[in-house]
């Protein structure tokens, strides 16, 4: 979903092979940086803040966040999951969720923050490689 954000089309199989998917366990979130072979620059961080997310969105980057779905109001399962942040307002955050066709999905900031906090507020900033210098400013 984050690669498609930049018009880079890769199959799930190609992506899984690149980031090291293991059946039952999934992929270590830090492996997301391996997506750089597809022409993007990826930075994985922890202890993120709303300011980090807002700056990334405003700069046109794709922001991937790791969340616990049990805290998300539109989920009825409790599992680790990844979302792409596409917009932030005062009390509302907009996400693209690969498990749902509807996009974007709006939710209360409080719900999102609880879900994000569960995994140490981990996030990844994905940009096209030629824009690599941009994040160094943050």
């Amino acid at each position, binding site marked *: 979903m984050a690669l498609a954000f930049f018009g880079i089309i890769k199959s799930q199989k190609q992506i899984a092979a690149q980031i090291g998917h293991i059946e039952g366990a999934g992929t270590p979130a830090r492996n997301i940086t391996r997506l750089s072979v597809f022409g993007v620059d990826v930075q994985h961080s922890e202890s993120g803040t709303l300011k980090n997310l807002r700056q990334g969105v405003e700069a046109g980057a794709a922001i991937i966040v*790791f969340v616990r779905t049990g805290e998300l109001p539109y989920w009825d399962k409790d599992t680790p999951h990844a979302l792409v942040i596409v917009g932030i307002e005062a009390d509302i955050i907009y996400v693209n969720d690969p498990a749902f066709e509807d996009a974007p999905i709006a939710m209360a900031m409080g719900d999102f923050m609880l879900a994000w906090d569960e995994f*140490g507020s981990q996030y990844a900033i994905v940009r096209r490689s030629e824009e690599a210098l941009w994040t160094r400013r943050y």
Partner: protein
Amino acid sequence: MVKESAMNVDIRRLSALFERLTPDESWVVLQFAEFLIQQRESKVDARTARRKVSAWLVREVGNLLMGDTPQYIPGERPVWRVPVLVTSGRHGHAAFVDVDAQSGDLLIDDYTPEKVLADVQAFVNNTASN
């Protein structure tokens, strides 16, 4: 005649009370007693321990794993024992990770990710063959 100490009296009273409880009531009293001990011995709460393990699992082992409800293990070095919950396919506990209940440090080493991963794969294979 030696006067019985206050502590011995308390122990006898507790014992007498315990005998009058049903098994379910005894379990509740035990849980409460353990909770009181946790409050005294542990500077890290169960939720914090679970979150630390969940964050580590997702970052270092796999994004389909997370920490489940921790169990408090008292002792010289009390720990929160956090089960590793497999969320893909059939859910279940495949391993555990300990968190120091005083410092909040994860009790892991360089080999822990491999060990957890091996346990997860064994759980998945066992589930698939049943």
